[in-house]
């Protein structure tokens, strides 16, 4: 299994090369001259040229890609033409914020979705099933940004239970940086007050974000449970007297879970790409907001950085899912 993991990680290299090449190509195919924009509307031709030389954008494209790609390896992911900050430094701050949000949402979605799907399948075509199917479809159809607004309206504006947005109050000192996940950092620092504050800020955005993976996981789990319930071994287990509960929560669950796992992996990537919407609503300082700002100003380096980072996390999460699949399914061999 270790060898398999290492091989999968090595296979990442060509994918990353392809990804960076693709991102680089797309960003240069698009119209718009970021240097001109960065130099400002009053800039003279000479000023623009000197800025271009400074940023290296006057060189031929292959040379630019080469220095970009070698930079990536060394942790130099280019810099923003607007803020002049290295993209890598920004990502170190913003990526953990987004990951914290996505992971919180996925944990919620998995924790609720798996049992909900199982129950839905057991009651197939009776009212609990209809209810959960209708609700899941509604949840999938619910725009996350609209749901976020409704949650804000209810819990932050009318009930005043939770903060409106942000990750942590500006006036307070956040816990010292360890993982970049504020909840974990607060626990590491032993600061329960800060942990509660971080959790409160996390609650609404995570809820807004978890709804559609929750619904998809429920649907997937329902479908795969129904599939498993048809299997001969379930009949054998019933014929030999095992209780419905044991069959369902032990024997059926593990089989159905391995089919659902793939969806969970795909969703991590999908959520990462879609955090923009929730981050916009809740002013969550993650890569989504960061990318939006860069996109609007046509500042390509940060956009490329974010895209690559999401691609890497996506590929890694699929690797984790594949490994988990092997743990659940003894027939899978890592060779």
């Amino acid at each position, binding site marked *: 299994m270790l060898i398999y993991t290492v091989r999968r990680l090595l296979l990442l290299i060509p994918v990353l090369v392809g990804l960076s090449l693709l991102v680089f190509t797309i960003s240069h195919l698009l119209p718009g001259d970021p240097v001109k924009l960065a130099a400002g509307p009053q800039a003279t031709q000479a000023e623009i040229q000197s800025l271009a030389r400074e940023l290296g954008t006057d060189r031929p494209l292959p040379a630019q890609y080469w220095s970009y790609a070698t930079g990536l390896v060394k942790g130099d992911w280019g810099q923003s033409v607007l803020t002049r900050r290295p993209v890598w430094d920004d990502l170190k701050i913003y990526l953990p914020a987004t990951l914290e949000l996505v992971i919180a949402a996925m944990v919620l979605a998995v924790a609720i979705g798996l049992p909900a799907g199982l129950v839905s399948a057991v009651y197939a075509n009776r009212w609990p099933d209809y209810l959960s199917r209708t609700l899941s479809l509604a949840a999938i159809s619910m725009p996350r940004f609209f749901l976020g607004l409704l949650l804000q309206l209810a819990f932050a504006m009318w009930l005043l239970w939770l903060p409106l947005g942000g990750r942590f109050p500006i006036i307070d000192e956040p816990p010292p940086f360890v993982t970049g996940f504020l909840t974990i950092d607060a626990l590491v620092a032993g600061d329960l007050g800060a942990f509660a504050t971080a959790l409160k800020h996390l609650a609404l955005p995570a809820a807004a974000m978890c709804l559609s993976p929750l619904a998809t996981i429920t649907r997937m789990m329902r479908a795969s449970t129904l599939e498993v319930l048809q*299997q*001969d*071994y379930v*009949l*054998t*287990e*019933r*014929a*030999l*007297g*095992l*209780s419905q509960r*044991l069959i369902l929560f*032990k*024997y059926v669950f*593990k*089989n159905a879970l*391995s089919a659902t796992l793939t969806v969970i992996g795909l969703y991590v990537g999908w959520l990462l790409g879609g955090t923009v919407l929730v981050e916009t609503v809740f002013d969550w300082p993650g890569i989504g907001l960061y990318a939006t700002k860069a996109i609007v100003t046509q500042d390509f380096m940060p956009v490329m950085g974010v895209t690559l980072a999401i691609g890497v996390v996506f590929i890694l999460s699929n690797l984790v899912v594949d490994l988990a699949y092997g743990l*659940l*399914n*003894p*027939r899978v061999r890592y060779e």
Partner: protein
Amino acid sequence: MALLEIRNLHLAMRSFEGEAHVLNGIDLKVDTGEIWGVVGETGCGKSLTGLSISRLVPTPPARYLAGEILFEGRDLLAASEAEMRALRGRRIGMIFQDPTTNLNPVFRIGDQMVDVALHAGHADPAVLGLDRRASGRARRKAARALAVRMLERVGIPDAARRVDDYPHQFSGGMRQRVLIAMALIGKPDLLIADEPTTALDVSVQAQILRLIHDLVVEDGLTVVMITHNLGVVAQLCTHVAVMYAGNIVEAGPVRPVFKNPGHPYTRALMAAVPTAGTKRGELAGLPGIVPSLFKPPPGCRFATRCAHATAACDLGAPAMRELSPGHSVACVLAGEI
């Protein structure tokens, strides 16, 4: 009192096309120690009869129209689910056709066997050789030891190690042995085996049949064995029931039935003893069509294929008549042809 007695069992099955009357008054009396073979063409209702005994036919889509299934005199169709569960695995064991699909692929075989043993031990602690007050841990340990012993009994070499293997690590024949061990781990009185060798290689079939035979004799088990193979019945069974389109058309001790078959269908079956070329469940050389079970004819269901059919056959379902002690036939011409 018979160990198992099925009386006038009628079962209907709903599907997209409508409701089919798939079991049409099954009568079967099985005494302790008897080994019954149930034979008949594909789709005649053998499996549904077997599953009905453990009440494993899903309702809906199925519906019991009439009849009773008495196990030691108790009507199982009226029993609660908890009562049924206490019987399953403990008093009634079952083996199915395909060993590759009947073992849960993602659990170690020991896991599944231990759970069955624990269940049986819950119904009757003597199965595990413990008394009621034994701790959970002691039960688990005893269940595991029992699982290993059962694997040894069914001829799995190196059972103590293999108990922790997954199903895919066994060959087809070995898997069926595991399933047999699992069905017998609760020391049942009645074993229902639904075509236990059909899915196996021909070379393995004989071994598995011999194994079942030895275990049955050792433990004094009562067996209902569903099969297509009359040869199996002749070798293994004491009694035989012949089914056609939801009816038992002939039943009795093997010797008189085979020597002196009373029903034209039984004769046809015996004439068509499968050779290597015939497909499973196919009856060679018997023309005609099986009547639709959605609108069954009022008379004998075999009349459409029967060479001896007369007008009398369409009048009403023929009643069972006894030709010799224990050997009865449902045909108006019984004994005359």
